[in-house]
């Protein structure tokens, strides 16, 4: 049969199966191959908090979603076009998000009596006609793979495990993506395991050929290449971008990097990446707890390193006392908080934006510090550089907020060259005669920095209030007032050193949407779609949460109706309302899932239709 090639603008694919089915791996390969062949991609791994949940269960489904397209792709996609379901449970939990007419590639072996029972199906959905509004392609993947590798002498266990590569091969043909990147990856990964390498490559190719020859696959889909700026790209997750950002920041600052931290989902990857960077001269300590994580970093900062600590909500809570110490000793420190669903252990593998209050206000005493937030996976790199810049320039701890969505999700990242990035070199005091530990730069109010090892500037600092300039322990009432005000003023002045906000969309709109953090993608897509429909809507996205950009007040002033979508119960909204004395509308999603574009569009429609009624 002649296959028709259909050009698409965008499509969303979801690989779903048991934790042991290799769906995360298939998804990652698919997104890398897609991105490297010129389309834009955005991914979201969505897996249970159990490491290997019992096979076949509904709660054990592990999935990886990819949206690809020729235009800029800001989210991992609201609704699924193609679902790869390795078992009954993975069909059941995902079918609600499958578009009408969408394709289901189902592995029939995963729909045996046992699996059906675990998925709580009374009858087999592949056979009972219940999926008639979808394009159902049931395949006995297991038998096909077994047949393909018959006589190869490869161990049956390896044969069975290779079935994700069959699914991957199918999708490569279906979306006309190159297999080479995956073949290359397999060759390095399984260099010393010839049988696994052979099995996977043969099965991958078999998947491609199966789709090519089988009539069930009528069309092959393709995309016009996305219009990327010239340059070198790679796919990157937010956690990986943070790790690289720290390394690069230390190079740009020309001082060593130290990471003191304690593992916690979803921030652990950063530690794991950094631990592999010894040949870049990087030191880290996997400490006994979060408190030792941050305090060891404070020790390293005192010693003149660019020091960082990484964590997620519950860990940030443990670090709070030490944040006060970093504030009063005025030492540079980068704290990266990868937010997850809370409180307590909450939804450890799922994203939320509910640590904003904690980052802004979670301190004892008057302890202001800069808080910034990354908008996307690739933006995590830039924001890590920015956090380091602020920390070193202003001698202050800085909290960078990301979350499980962008930390684990990926997107193509244009790799910067070193000279494109700002110079972050700190200035160590080199004049002992002129040195005093709390003498300040008149412009930034940053205190002087001298580190152990520098002769003639031996001094003592610590958590007790210090006399202005000299740093001698001091409990004088006026001095404390002055020092509190100086520390506040130092942070407030940063507002003049950060970019002004740019209003996107239609500046004359009746509705302004204010976003922050990882919901950027969904809000941007929603606003773009509304604009295309002719709706007048404007959008600003905050990356600097404390201090705010200097023109935020002006912008807020201008709009009567303001919508603040966030993955919490309205934390930014409340901060803005209090700050600008202006009521705003919240859209608050706390389901452990990122916003969908449609969530936001729906809310925009709702607000605007009510406005019409009122007017």
């Amino acid at each position, binding site marked *: 049969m002649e296959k028709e090639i259909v050009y698409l603008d965008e499509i969303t694919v979801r690989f779903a199966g048991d934790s042991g089915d290799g769906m995360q791996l298939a998804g990652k390969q698919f997104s890398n191959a897609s991105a490297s062949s010129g389309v834009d991609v955005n991914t979201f791994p969505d897996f249970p908090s159990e490491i290997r949940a019992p096979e076949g269960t509904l709660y054990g489904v592990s999935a990886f979603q990819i949206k690809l397209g020729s235009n800029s792709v800001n989210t991992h996609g609201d609704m699924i076009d193609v679902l790869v379901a390795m078992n009954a449970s993975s069909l059941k939990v995902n079918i609600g998000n499958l578009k009408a007419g969408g394709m289901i590639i189902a592995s029939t072996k995963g729909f045996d009596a046992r699996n059906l029972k675990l998925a709580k199906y009374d009858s087999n959905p592949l056979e009972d006609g219940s999926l008639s509004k979808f394009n159902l392609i049931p395949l006995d993947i297991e038998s096909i793979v077994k047949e393909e590798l018959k006589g190869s002498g490869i161990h049956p266990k390896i044969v069975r495990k290779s079935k994700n590569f069959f699914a991957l091969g199918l999708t490569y043909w279906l979306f006309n993506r190159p297999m080479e990147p995956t073949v290359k990856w397999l060759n390095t990964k399984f260099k010393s395991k010839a049988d696994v390498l052979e099995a996977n490559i043969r099965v991958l190719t078999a998947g491609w050929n199966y789709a090519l020859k089988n009539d069930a696959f009528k069309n092959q889909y393709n995309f016009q290449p996305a219009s990327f700026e010239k340059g070198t790209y790679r796919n990157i997750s937010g956690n990986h971008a943070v790790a690289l950002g720290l390394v690069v920041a230390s190079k740009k600052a020309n001082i060593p990097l130290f990471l003191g931290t304690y593992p916690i989902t979803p921030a652990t990857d950063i530690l794991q990446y950094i631990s592999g960077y010894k040949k870049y001269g990087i030191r880290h300590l996997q400490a006994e707890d979060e408190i030792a994580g941050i305090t060891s970093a404070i020790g390293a900062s005192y010693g003149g390193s660019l020091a960082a600590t990484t964590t997620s909500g519950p860990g940030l809570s443990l670090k709070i006392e030490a944040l006060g110490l970093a504030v009063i000793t005025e030492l540079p420190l980068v704290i990266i908080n990868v937010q997850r669903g809370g409180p307590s252990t909450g939804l450890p593998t799922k994203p939320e934006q509910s640590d904003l209050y904690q980052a802004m206000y979670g301190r004892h005493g008057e302890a202001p510090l800069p808080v910034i937030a990354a908008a996307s996976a690739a933006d995590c790199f830039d924001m890590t550089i920015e956090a380091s810049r602020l920390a070193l320039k202003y001698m202050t701890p800085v909290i960078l907020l990301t979350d499980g969505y962008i930390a684990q999700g990926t997107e193509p990242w244009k790799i910067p060259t070193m000279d494109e990035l700002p110079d972050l*070199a700190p200035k160590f005091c080199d004049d002992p005669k002129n040195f005093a530990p709390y003498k300040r730069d008149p412009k930034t109010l940053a205190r002087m920095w001298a580190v152990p090892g520098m002769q003639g500037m031996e001094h003592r600092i610590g958590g007790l209030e210090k006399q202005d300039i000299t740093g001698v322990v001091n409990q004088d009432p006026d001095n404390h007032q002055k020092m509190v005000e100086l520390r506040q003023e130092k942070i407030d002045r940063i507002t003049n050193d950060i970019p002004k906000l740019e209003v996107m969309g239609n500046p004359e709109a009746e509705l302004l949407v204010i976003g922050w953090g990882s919901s950027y993608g969904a809000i941007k897509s929603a606003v773009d779609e509304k604009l295309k429909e002719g709706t007048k809507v404007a959008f600003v996205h905050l990356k600097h949460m404390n201090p705010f950009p200097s023109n935020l007040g002006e912008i807020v002033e201008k709009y009567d109706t303001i919508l603040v979508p966030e993955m919490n119960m309205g934390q930014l909204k409340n901060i803005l309302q209090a700050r600008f004395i202006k009521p705003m509308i919240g859209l608050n999603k706390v389901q452990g899932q990122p916003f969908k574009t449609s969530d936001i569009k729906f809310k925009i429609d709702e607000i605007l239709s009510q406005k019409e009624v009122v007017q």
Partner: protein
Amino acid sequence: MKNLLDEAISRPHIGTLEYQPKDFKPDVDVRWCAGCGGFSILSPVQRMMPDLGIPKEKIAFISGIGCSGRFPYYMDVYGFHGIHGRAIAIASGLKISRPDLSVWVATGDGDNMSIGGNHFIHGCRRNVDLNVIMFNNEVYSLTKGQYSPTSHKGQITKSSPLGALDEPFNPAALALGSGATFVARGFDKDRAHLQHLFKRAAEHKGFAFVEVYVNCNIFNDGAFDSFAKKDVREDKTVMLEHGKPLIFGKEKDKGVKLDGFKPTVVSLTDGSHSVADLLVHDEKDSTLAFILGNMTYNPEVPRPLGIFQSLERPSYDDSVQFQIDHEIETKGAGSISELLKGKESWEVK
């Protein structure tokens, strides 16, 4: 090419390294109560420092919170007064990132055994090259007199009017059990011995823990009198000296002998035992160290003082440096542009 930090810290030292103790005294008043045992630590530390021959700028004292926490202010070197319990963690970050420094920790029995207990045990096993001096006054002094994790059972304090119910930690045994390579104990009345212990701690490469019994004459006066007071001291304590038998007593008339694993006191004058029967101390024997550590609260034997154990093991900070050097040697110094590109990058033209 040197980075900015290397440049800042590797300038040659100008002037002499022949320091006097007074060179380590900053121009501030020591604000401990008159008669506080803390003075008995400060002065031997200041006296010992010139012996080390380390430039002042390469020495850093880190402390937590408590009366002991003020210590860094009283040393004219680099100092960092941290938060309650975290001195070892702060010092670890400093030492790992700055192996060129001599890093000291001043801490208390509450600071180090209670709120900082976790950092202490992990510091011990990790063997970061720190010198930790614990001011053990068996009470929380800065908060004005509550019982601490080293207060003895039944101790009457402001928060235990009917007597403390907890069993105390035995700091030396805890340190040994946690894997500390150097464990020693002294007391405030014997400054010369303390000076010796601090010097040995400084020379030890790895985690060195020195527990010092210090009298708090305000909140726990006389806590150590039962064995440390002049008239009983020689009969109630025994000095551990490497290679020497455990002899004690005013008349050097008693000794400690091992009965199986059980240390027992024997007389050297009644004809039943001679010096040859006595336990001979060996700093390198970690099994023996456990036995000696366990003598601490045993009323039938004298309280051991001195160096329980001094073992050589690679320090954590050295091992970090070794891994870095080894990686660079075998794989070459990392190229940032290669790191950023990774293995799966592509060009858009």
